[in-house]
């Protein structure tokens, strides 16, 4: 490992550990940051408005306290943590916040956020729960309303050209993430899962151009590596909702696994689907966010008429990734109280079985306090498949 590597990864680590560092600096220079939760918020529209989208994170190391005075503990622990940090003022540098209809917890707590936090802009984006022609039409209109509300906030029109430009840079970002994932195909992978998740997390706190620049540097760095930072081990796939921290992945890699692919929101779910260029940009965005982001929140019709056919179409991306990245074992990581994912656990289990990929299902509470318990299970799982 050369000095240069540690240099760029040090930058990543710094952005990861001091999350929002760059946003605070740029705010001083007059830039406005708009926070968002969940992969279903169309970031391109925020970028097109001249503001910068900023993914609001939780922290597994910070006990949830203030948040519990306003929000029930039956909310998914990840979301509770994000809320807790927000009401503690960690994100007070933001100018606004956008919450989508990602799950009941988001919908039902919107008032707690919008009345409780000191931001001047709040917006709720309704996301249809089905994907058909009429819902795409509706979603076009809903995204147009989002665009208008941002225009009102910034006082500047968001033109089609702005939107096209934003779509282009966000697509570039996704290409770079794909390229980073390519580095995982080596055995052992050239980039560890810990490094990758840390990089993507850091990226979600930066203006998109800076994120692109950072990913380029990481890519050059990793490509220039002679060897993997990991010892060869079982190639592990992580399936689940938003994992905006490295704890689980680090644990897997400390115990000898190689994390090589995922469907997590802060990974492939969020970064793989691209927006079509050409045509109406709003309509292209609604097709990306509703049609292409494979979230259990969106109901997909069972066209096959069989259970096997249904799971093959709902979870087909998993099958493709596991082949592409030569996956040997998968971890399904679901938060307690998460209805959208929770109701899919048996179907997902069945799907992994159909792929012949051993699966470790975990239900967790988004706290580093449970790492000890996870360690035992992950260790046993790796030994079993290793």
């Amino acid at each position, binding site marked *: 490992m050369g000095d240069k590597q540690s240099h760029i990864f040090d930058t990543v680590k710094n952005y990861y550990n001091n999350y929002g560092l760059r946003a605070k600096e740029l705010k001083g220079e007059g830039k406005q940051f708009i926070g968002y939760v969940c992969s279903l918020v169309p970031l391109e529209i925020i970028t097109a408005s001249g503001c910068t989208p900023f993914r609001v994170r939780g922290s597994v190391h910070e006990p949830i306290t203030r948040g519990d*005075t*306003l*929000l*029930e503990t*039956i*909310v998914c622990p990840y979301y509770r943590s994000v809320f807790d940090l927000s009401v503690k003022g960690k994100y007070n540098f933001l100018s606004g916040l956008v919450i989508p*209809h990602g*799950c*009941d*917890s988001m*919908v*039902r*707590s*919107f*008032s*707690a956020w*919008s*009345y*409780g936090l000191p931001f001047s802009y*709040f*917006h*709720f984006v*309704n996301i*249809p*729960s*089905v994907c*058909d022609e*009429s*819902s795409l*039409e*509706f979603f076009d*209109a*809903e995204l147009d*309303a989002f665009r208008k*509300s941002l225009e009102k906030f910034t006082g500047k029109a968001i033109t089609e050209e702005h939107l096209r430009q934003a779509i282009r840079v966000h697509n570039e970002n996704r290409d770079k993430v794909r390229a980073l994932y390519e580095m995982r195909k080596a055995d052992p992978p050239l980039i560890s899962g810990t490094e990758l998740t840390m990089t993507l997390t850091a990226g979600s706190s930066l203006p998109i151009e800076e994120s692109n620049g950072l990913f380029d540097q990481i890519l050059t760095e990793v490509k220039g590596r002679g060897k993997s930072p990991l010892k060869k081990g079982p190639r592990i796939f992580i399936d689940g909702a938003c994992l905006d921290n490295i704890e689980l992945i680090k644990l897997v890699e400390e115990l000898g696994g190689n994390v090589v692919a995922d469907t997590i929101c802060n990974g492939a779910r969020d970064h793989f689907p691209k927006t079509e260029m050409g045509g109406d940009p709003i309509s292209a965005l609604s097709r990306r966010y509703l049609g292409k982001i494979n979230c*259990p*929140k969106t*109901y997909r*019709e*069972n066209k096959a*008429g*069989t*259970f096997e056919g*249904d799971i093959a179409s709902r979870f087909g991306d998993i099958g493709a990734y596991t082949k592409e990245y030569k996956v040997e074992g998968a971890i399904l990581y*679901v938060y*307690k*109280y998460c*209805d*959208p994912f*929770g*109701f*899919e*656990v*048996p*179907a997902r*289990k*069945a799907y992994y079985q159909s792929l012949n990929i051993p699966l470790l*299902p975990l*239900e967790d509470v988004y706290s580093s306090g449970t790492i000890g318990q996870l360690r035992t299970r992950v260790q046993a799982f790796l030994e079993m498949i290793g």
Partner: protein
Amino acid sequence: MAEEQKEAKPKKRMTATKAAASIGPMVKEFITGTLQAKAEGKYKVAYTFIVCHHEEIFRALDVIPVWTENFAGICGAKRDAERFLQRAESLGFSRSLCTYALCGIGFDQWREELGQMPPEAPWGGQVRPDFMISSGQILCDPRSKWYQASQQFMPDVPIYNIDLPYPLFQENRDHREVLGYYHQYIVKQLRGLVAFLEEQTKKKMDYDRLRELVNLSDRTWNLIDETYKLRRAAPCPMGTGDAMNTMVPINFMMATQKAYDFFVDLKKELEEKIARGEGEVENEKYRLMWGGGLPAWYALNDFNYFNSKGASFPVETTYRMVAPLNEMDLPETKDPIEHLAWRWLGYWTFWYDKAKKRPGSEPDVERLINWIEEYKIDGVVMHEAFSCRTWHVGLIWQLHQLAKIYKPIPVYMIGKGGQKEKVYRELPSLILESDIIDITSYSEVDTRNKIDAFVETLESIQSNRAT
């Protein structure tokens, strides 16, 4: 203790009204009716969810709705949900998920495995549906996930999912700006449902019949509103305990003459009780609002426990899924589907304008304030059911916001300088915690201790209230 509860047969709850007492047999008849309909094969039966404003469409095409939330609630009320919940858990579902859905999925899987009803299924069991109508909405994730999960065990039963969003309240936005495209979308979704049902039943929709049914439920809506407003009387003639029975015609029987007639009778009964000065409790001391949360179906006797302490519940936010149509300003239309969509939006945005006028208010908070005043409420009781985010996230915040902007109780306090000062305080509130049907989450001793403490608090406030 939990063991004891499970084994103990639930005691029949005392109701204040005759109408409420007539509900039990009605539900039983309804459940057995679905079994019979299926056996005869004359009508299609469909799983579906309440509060979708689609009953009229079902009934116009003679599709028999099987309310799966209702069946889970029945299992809960009969204290017989645990074996179905355990089955769902053994299939890999977490107990932290919606327990209605877990109970339903556990039951379905068992029925499908046996090829017949599980042993001693409550009230004959839940019928195998011909199809399932799920509904993604702006609320309730399980509604679009439950049937999808059940389909694993009956893959030949098709699902049709309708989307019924409404614009969420945003302080700085006039919701009318977006109503147009919401309405268009809902109309298309409902028309999609009509097409699906036509295909399944091989019938054509009779739009005149549909219009009549929509008209019938509109009239029922207004009648329910008038009937429930009678509960403003002191003493209150009917409480929330009874309303957890009378929710049945509101939520499961809409668009039927029977539901309309039920409320004609109930209204008459309440008027008579008021004329006689007869209250839900003999000596009404406190008037409480059930301000949020679904009830613990196995513990409805807790309402009687409140009653035994002189506390009555003239109003509840739960299951009062209607609002006066004449106060909604719905656009005129001859098309019943368009009307259903407007009514849907009118219901969900009912409190928006009022909420905007009061600084710091919000629709759910505004409703609390309005009803506290209209029903002369002394305290608010809520229930946090751990397994349901839909109805139970946001309640703490609502109480917090209510306390912040609304302080109706004058009290004298000894100030810092030792002199008496008149200050205003918020309405007291109580949050009970357990679940809709998971009895292992419930402790009668703890619940009643909390109720005791709350009633003693009300007593203490009443005696210290400044005039």
